């Protein structure tokens, strides 16, 4: 008799417990269904924010790599059409560059230094190699501008290579896919490039304030250095990305903040980012060696 009562009691308790659970679940479901739009909204925004933040701190996800392949092909077709409108301009630029290069030909110089002749193979060891590429997508009016090139990993382009054209520096390769690469140009608020004033070799960091694609800022030049308008600014060659002495631009204006030991120097960029077509990607053949040596020192 007592046994049965016990059983019944247990069943009763279990039943109550079950209904309690289902009641809770029902409430939760009701809540979810009622606010399903908001939940979906939050989920989608979290996804997109994650993509944004991941990209800010790490290399681009492989997802972007793959999409670059797709959009890159479409841009290639697009630029093959638009290219024709720029042919005249581009020809003029190439002709100018040809002349400049012809002036540098070895036959133009008389070598009369005995030391150089003796140590010929050491002096003329090649340090930088250039890969020609074409700009197939470009932006200048955003805060984070990017350039897409028509060559990628298959053609030997790797992240962190420098990009220049006949006028001056363009930017640094950020990411590559098999046939395309993405360049952070000087005119991206996240770009920082080591630069120096040509006449006195003081170096600082070139950055962009996001305002005008024709001007950039040179920071970290101390106040005691003599700067004047029209000074040429070139790459420093310290970062092992660019060769030394590639033109960046000229000093347009400079001022001095109270309580700050450094100048604000405005640079007129020599590269016309509005009108980019052919560029050269710089590959430093000794970069790995330099990096390994530098890292071994910092790890001590």
């Amino acid at each position, binding site marked *: 008799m007592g046994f049965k009562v016990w059983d019944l009691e247990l069943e009763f308790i279990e039943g109550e417990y079950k209904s309690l659970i289902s009641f809770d679940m029902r409430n939760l479901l009701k809540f979810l269904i009622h606010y399903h739009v908001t939940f979906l*909204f939050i989920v*989608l925004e979290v996804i997109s924010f994650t993509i*944004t933040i991941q990209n800010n701190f790490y290399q681009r996800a492989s997802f972007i790599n793959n999409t670059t392949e797709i959009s890159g092909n*479409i841009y290639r077709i697009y630029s093959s059409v638009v290219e024709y409108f720029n042919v005249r301009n581009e020809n003029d630029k190439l002709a100018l560059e040809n002349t400049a290069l012809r002036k540098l030909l070895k036959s133009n110089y008389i070598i009369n230094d005995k030391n150089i002749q003796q140590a010929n193979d050491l002096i003329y060891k090649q340090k930088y190699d250039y890969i020609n590429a074409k700009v197939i997508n470009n932006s200048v009016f955003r805060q984070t501008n990017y350039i897409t090139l028509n060559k990628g990993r298959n053609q030997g382009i790797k992240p962190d290579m420098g990009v220049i054209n006949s006028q001056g520096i363009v930017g640094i390769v950020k990411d590559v896919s098999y046939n395309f690469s993405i360049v952070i140009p000087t005119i991206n608020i996240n770009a920082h490039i080591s630069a120096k004033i040509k006449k006195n070799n003081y170096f600082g960091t070139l950055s962009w304030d996001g*305002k005008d694609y024709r001007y950039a800022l040179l920071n970290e030049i101390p106040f005691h250095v003599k700067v004047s308008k029209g000074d040429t600014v070139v790459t420093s060659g310290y970062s092992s990305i660019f060769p030394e002495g590639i033109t960046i631009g000229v000093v347009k204006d400079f001022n001095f903040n109270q309580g700050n030991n450094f100048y604000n120097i405005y640079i007129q960029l020599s590269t016309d980012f509005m009108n980019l077509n052919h560029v050269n990607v710089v590959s430093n053949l000794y970069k790995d060696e330099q990096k390994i040596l530098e890292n071994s020192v910092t790890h001590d």
Partner: protein
Amino acid sequence: MINIIPQNIIRFFVLVFIQVVILNNLQFSGFVNPFIYILFILLLPFETPSWLLLIIGFVTGLTIDVFSGTIAIHTIATTLAAYARPFVLTLFAPRDGYESRTSPTLKYYDLLWIIRYSVVIVLIHHSCLFLVEVFRFSGFFYTLLRIILSSILTSILIIISQLLFYKNK
């Protein structure tokens, strides 16, 4: 009623094409960028369920991101605009609600309503877009100026397109 779906799909491709190929390359001065593709979200039929609206907004933003080489900033802004649309519609609802089988175009509603509706959504979208793009609050007034000028330009383009395609009164 059945041709609403192909009509919207075609509109999607046309707007993305215009945005990516023309407007992204043809900015008018330093900081004014029109983003006409938001018109696609604006013109979806009233009956579109909110969850579908969100997914459509997400996909639209993602498409623009892929072609602009930007990372997810258009996705964030467009999803927000899609989320806000039902609220804005409720805010500006006529006294007897929206008639079924109509869409938010000049064909069914007057110009003033269209302007109010478009400007609010465009402002939401552009504010989110430019703030996330800069990702910082320094130079806030500069960003604010970009938001206002770009919103004006986008709104003007949207109104012009409405006058061109839907004015048959």
